């Protein structure tokens, strides 16, 4: 069964390097939401719901007071403290709209890392508690280390090359050169620069890792019925999925399917619900925490077998606007701006509307896959009306 919801508005603030935003995180959230509501041709008082993810600091009570809303009929977040919830936050809004719990839901993410510090940064203390004892004691501390461990095994198991990791970074930077919003606009990246950049945690070079940024992005989701009367071409949510395989929630790399990006079940479910296959997708946004997990996510979503990933990403195949499957066409987390991946949702909607700075031709289906390597995974598929 498909939901009844469509994206009717999108908005984003200017994007900044970490700590350079002149506005607070809450001010950024308000600005992005105002822009998305205006883009839809709605008023703030029409909004009656919020969803977000990653334990948003900008709670619905404070937001609704500041935005002068008449009612908050629905507010929710998926579990978890990671980018794996990007698409899930849209899925929850889709479900709520389809169930009639709210009429116009804002889905958003805002962050000002200068104001609040790096999200999830490990701090040294004398003791590692709980399950961190099994990892932090050995110097396994950050998401980079976790994803590096997954990626090393993936590369070993399937013969994946360092150049395939590079392709993800190169595509993001190439696309950012077309996008004036992008932090890396005017700063192209060559393959030589990629390989010469310093190591962070092998197999990740500097350019395999997403940067730290400040900004906010938001969308408005309404019923497809109401969407017809609004300002923009509505972008229906064709399908969404969360997924996590058997015992894949086992900790510190004891999931039976390791190395996994936690997207196998996500992929199976979303294609089944949508009634299409990966071949029917013209453009995709894959959350890049690090390049390696993106490669894993491409295979687990069913675009190719792991043994085929080197060829799948080579030769400009993932570069837009003319590649076989352009990915991260705004520059993504790596080169547009890291708003914990929500900027990818806005870009996926733009691709259906025909408004991308790297516009792919004849987009019927536009996919977003959330943060790989953290569970549960999620994805959302937009379609032409």
């Amino acid at each position: 069964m498909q939901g009844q919801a469509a994206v009717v508005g999108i908005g984003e603030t200017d994007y900044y390097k970490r700590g350079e935003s002149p506005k607070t995180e809450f001010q950024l959230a308000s600005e992005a939401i105002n822009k998305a509501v205006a883009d839809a041709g709605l008023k703030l008082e029409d909004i009656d719901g919020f969803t977000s993810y990653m334990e948003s600091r900008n709670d619905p009570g404070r937001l609704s007071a500041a935005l002068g809303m008449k009612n908050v009929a629905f507010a929710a977040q998926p579990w978890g403290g990671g980018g794996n919830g990007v698409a899930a936050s849209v899925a929850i809004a889709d479900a709520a709209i389809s169930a009639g719990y709210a009429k116009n839901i804002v889905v958003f993410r805002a962050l000002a890392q200068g104001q609040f510090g790096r999200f999830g940064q490990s701090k040294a203390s004398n003791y590692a508690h709980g399950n961190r004892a099994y990892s932090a004691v050995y110097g396994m501390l950050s998401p980079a280390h976790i994803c590096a461990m997954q990626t090393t095994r993936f590369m070993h198991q399937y013969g994946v090359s360092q150049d395939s990791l590079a392709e993800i970074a190169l595509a993001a930077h190439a696309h950012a050169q077309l996008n004036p919003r992008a932090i890396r606009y005017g700063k192209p990246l060559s393959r030589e620069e990629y390989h010469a950049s310093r190591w962070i945690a092998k197999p990740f070079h500097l350019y395999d890792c997403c940067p730290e940024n400040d900004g906010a992005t938001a969308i408005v989701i309404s019923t497809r019925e109401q969407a017809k009367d609004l300002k923009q071409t509505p972008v229906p949510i064709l399908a969404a999925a969360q997924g996590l395989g058997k015992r894949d929630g086992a900790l510190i790399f004891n999931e039976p399917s390791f190395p996994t990006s936690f997207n196998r079940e996500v992929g199976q479910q979303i294609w089944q619900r949508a009634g299409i296959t990966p071949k029917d997708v013209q453009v995709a946004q894959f959350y890049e925490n690090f390049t390696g997990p993106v490669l894993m996510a491409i295979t687990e979503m069913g675009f190719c077998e792991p043994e085929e990933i080197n060829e799948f990403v080579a030769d400009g195949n993932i570069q837009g606007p003319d590649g076989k499957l352009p990915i991260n066409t705004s520059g993504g987390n790596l080169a547009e701006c890291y708003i914990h991946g929500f900027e990818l949702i806005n870009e996926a909607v733009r691709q259906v509307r025909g408004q991308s700075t790297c516009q792919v031709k004849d987009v019927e289906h536009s996919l977003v896959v959330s943060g790989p390597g953290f569970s549960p995974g999620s994805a959302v598929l937009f379609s032409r009306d």
Partner: protein
Amino acid sequence: MQRYMPDWWVLPAINDQNREFFTSGEIKIQQCEACGQVQHPPEEVCHQCQGIVFDWRSCSGEGTIFSHTVVEHPIPNSLQERVPYAVILVSLTDYPAIRIIGNATNIDADKVAVGQKVRAVFEVIEDEQAKVTLKIPQWEVIS
């Protein structure tokens, strides 16, 4: 043996679930008394039968490097003097599905490779604050 990470680095906060792992001087894995399932890290409920009574299964201390990373960028900055260091993921010979994080203590970080055979060694540390003798499992590459 000298600690692989710096002397001042974090220690495991010992509790009833991890005491055997970090103090016994053996590689000990949680085993469900009802169904015999082994699992790591220790959990409050058995993943196979949802039992809640557990014992500990001693393992040979032999394993294979299943994956690894070499950390070059220090987090936090105070590890600047320690990088590069290698973190390894060991698949136990006795229970290949069980994977344990550790360090390869006897070779350079860049010499670590998937498939190397390892054997458990233990860093004995007196944690005077917690009044416990830790025997932190670590690994030596043997081939």
